[in-house]
């Protein structure tokens, strides 16, 4: 095993050098000679962000639980460290053993958001690995990826040897077995042969085994498998029995403060509320809850193994967990003497959620965060955010009666059918909440923050056909809305429209964008998700150089029968269902959550197949009837 040499004196000039030293509590250090398979798990962002990511922790545990494999971590070095690495010729190395990433069998990236793509290229470069699959040799590791972005990974398809679609706890095991066999046989046929073998595994997508074609006008035409092994479509993997899946009950304790520095308890996977803008709500279906007793036990282990003093109940819509009140009571009882607090990161907009929040925040009331997403009922119906004005007011009223005085409200702008009236609705709502605080408490001075993100249409959502609102129009909307906030106690914050534009291009892009990514990276783009590093003009210049029109990807409304670059990936939810939802959105008709109501025919349950697991009494004692919605 080679190790990189770093003189500690060099690190004295680096910000937060503890990011680069490894040795954290619960990190797993194995002897490289004692295992067959060496996996470097990469996250394309800085330590504090990377260490907060649950998916990566789970895969780290899955691999390190095996006796024949090891997984080590590598994160994007911050710009100062990158400069040092270049100056001293230190290749990208893993934290556990300081071993160059290039010496591993596999380099596995998590792709959490599109704006991290340039960091991926940068990390490959620092590792000394050719950026493109086509240029890699037998000496290079297999470069693979998982995470939410892989559902449409086409813009980065040329940089990766394969993708894990969906939940990878099981497919990772199958992949490692296949790799072990192939290595044992003496690597017959080289990495090409291995990739064909891996393509047999359900949920694994090998982009080089497919050929893409485009229409003359530039639209995507089709994708065709080039080998028998290449499945069409590639179905995502899910874990049906979430009570018996590997969990990370020994999470690594970061050396420095990170974004989410607490124990994380995943209560369930999936969310079927069906918000039409939300990709997570479509790609992670169906809902699968863990048993409450199981969660208690996991929580106890997590705290014992870490010494954390906070546990966060995490899921897509945490308050939807069917046994939440019992779970919270049990955890609070169990942890009271150990001074461990319980927290709920995502609150539903209703009074019930406030009751739970009240329980967990008995002493200090931090700010209350609610996400109505749109300012009028009409628009909330369009996006299927099944929240009424009454829900919002009841939630806030309940919160104010119980001592909260700070509210943070999340909205989006640039949603389909949105008018200035809907935007005015945001300001109105904030003002009414401000008044409500006075009515409830008799005091003025409730502090409200209104945060408005610009909407990015994502693949695998009912809004995947829509043309994104232009940067100029978003900026006009921002100015308009800013003009409506006159109360000094209401703070208005919004996101950079230009970042949202690039994100929209990458989210619904095709393979031709790999040239743009490489070009913009060569021009110096990294850390694009950090405002201080994002350079819009650099991106625009790169599109020009590559002869691609960014509006073609972001702003163009797509025909309902248009082929999409991601049609060969199947998340279980059918295009027919998404089209139906898109049409219902246009009419402002809502669709109910299938969790405790009848099936809506999104198809994920019969198609994968999978079973929705929810322990609410509505669902007790009978099997849910599910169906596939087909368009005539």
């Amino acid at each position: 095993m080679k190790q990189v040499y770093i003189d500690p004196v060099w690190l004295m000039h680096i910000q937060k050098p503890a990011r680069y030293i490894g040795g954290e509590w619960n990190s797993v250090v194995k002897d490289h000679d004692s295992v067959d398979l060496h996996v470097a798990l990469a996250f394309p962002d800085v330590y504090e962000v990377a260490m907060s990511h649950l998916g990566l922790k789970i895969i780290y545990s899955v691999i390190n639980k095996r006796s024949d494999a090891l997984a080590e971590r590598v994160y994007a070095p911050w710009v100062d460290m990158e400069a040092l690495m270049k100056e001293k010729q230190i290749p990208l190395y893993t934290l556990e053993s300081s071993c160059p990433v290039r010496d591993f069998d596999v380099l596995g990236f998590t792709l959490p958001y599109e704006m991290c793509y340039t960091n991926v290229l940068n990390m490959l470069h620092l590792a000394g690995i050719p950026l493109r699959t086509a240029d890699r040799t037998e000496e290079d590791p297999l470069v693979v990826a998982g995470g939410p972005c892989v559902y449409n990974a086409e813009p980065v398809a040329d940089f990766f040897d394969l993708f894990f679609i969906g939940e990878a706890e099981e497919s990772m095991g199958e992949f490692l077995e296949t790799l072990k066999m192939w290595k044992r046989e003496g690597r017959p046929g080289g990495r090409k042969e291995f990739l064909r073998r891996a393509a047999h595994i359900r949920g694994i997508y090998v982009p080089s085994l497919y050929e893409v074609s485009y229409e003359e006008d530039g639209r995507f035409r089709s994708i065709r498998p080039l080998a028998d092994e290449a499945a069409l479509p590639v179905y995502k993997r899910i874990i049906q029995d979430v009570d018996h899946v590997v969990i990370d009950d020994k999470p690594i304790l970061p050396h420095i403060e990170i974004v989410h520095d607490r124990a994380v308890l995943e209560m369930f996977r999936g969310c079927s509320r069906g918000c039409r803008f939300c990709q997570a709500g479509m790609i992670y279906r169906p809902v699968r809850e863990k048993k409450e007793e199981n969660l208690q036990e996991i929580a106890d282990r997590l705290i014992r193994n870490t010494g954390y003093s906070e546990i966060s109940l995490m899921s897509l819509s945490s308050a939807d967990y069917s046994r939440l009140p019992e779970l919270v009571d049990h955890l609070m009882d169990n942890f009271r003497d150990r001074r461990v607090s319980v927290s709920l990161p995502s609150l539903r907009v209703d009074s019930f959620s406030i009751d739970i929040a009240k329980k967990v925040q008995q002493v200090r009331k931090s700010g209350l965060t609610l996400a109505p997403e749109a300012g009028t009922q009409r628009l909330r119906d369009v996006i299927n955010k099944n929240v009424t004005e009454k829900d919002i007011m009841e939630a806030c009223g309940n919160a104010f009666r119980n001592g909260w005085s700070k509210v943070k409200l999340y909205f989006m702008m640039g949603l389909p059918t949105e008018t200035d009236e809907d935007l005015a609705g945001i300001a109105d709502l904030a003002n009414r909440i401000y008044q409500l605080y006075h009515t409830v408490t008799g005091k003025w001075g409730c502090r409200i923050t209104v945060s408005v993100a610009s909407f990015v249409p994502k693949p695998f959502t009912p809004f995947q056909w829509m043309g994104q609102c232009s940067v100029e129009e978003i900026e006009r909307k921002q100015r308009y809305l800013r003009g409506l906030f006159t109360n000094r106690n209401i703070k208005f914050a919004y996101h950079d429209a230009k970042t949202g534009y690039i994100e929209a291009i990458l989210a619904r892009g095709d393979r031709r964008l790999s040239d743009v990514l490489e070009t913009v990276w060569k021009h110096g783009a990294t850390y694009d998700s950090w405002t201080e590093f994002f350079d819009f003009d650099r991106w625009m210049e790169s599109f020009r150089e590559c002869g691609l029109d960014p509006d073609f990807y972001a702003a163009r409304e797509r025909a309902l029968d248009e082929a999409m670059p991601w049609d060969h990936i199947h998340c279980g939810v059918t295009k027919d269902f998404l089209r139906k939802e898109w049409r219902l959105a246009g009419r402002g008709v809502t669709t109910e959550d299938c969790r405790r109501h009848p099936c809506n025919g999104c198809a994920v349950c019969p198609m994968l197949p999978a079973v929705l697991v929810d322990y609410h009494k509505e669902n007790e004692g009978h099997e849910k009837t599910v169906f596939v919605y087909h368009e005539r």
Partner: protein
Amino acid sequence: MKRLFLSITKGEEIRFLGHLDFLRTLERAVLRAEIPAVFSEGFNPHMKIALDAALGVGVVADLIYLELRVEDSVSLEEVRERLAPQLLKGIRIHDIREAAPEWPKLINYLNEDSYEAEGPVSGTVDEARIQEETARFNGLDSFVYQRVTPKKVREIDIMPLLTEPVAVRIDNGRAYVTFSFLRTRTGSIQPKDIWKILAESFHMPWMPGEFVCRRCGVYHRENGVRMTPFDEAAFPATTQEPEK
């Protein structure tokens, strides 16, 4: 409630943990060890744990003293046994003793630190010259140093603060400088100052700022005599050692 003094090591593996990160690591180890530590009262209770000094990022320590308050129910041996397996690589427990309530806080009791600074040599190394310059420095009665901080410039005479002669050793392309100085209330000198002074004013073959540091000792110094909190004579007759 028991008041404990522990002497521990902050080793190479965790050199780059800053003071608060190091303290948090220790707190979490105490929690995992399920040692009944004592917490402050109030809305936001804190574990009663403190270190003898706030060592900077990049500084290791052969010994650093830790004060911890625990419930009476736990014995010194139990604390040691439970804590040791929960400590990060690079942290070791040396000694542990119970402290009387009236003994001063460690941070107030300890007043002298010894360091060894280490860094790469640059330029030509002339051993004889190095020793001459070292002797010249040690022979000075006064050396006024301008300490520049973002807020102000301060002049300090460092010689009265240095308690032992500075020694310089060159080995295998690295320079090692040992020195000891007194802590003062008004913020005294720091290792980086000595390293810089020797480089800039005494022609030592290294670059200012290009070094790492090891604290090799920390003492209570009185009338030229060094004591540690673990010496029998450390807390004299006016106080009674509590029963074990």
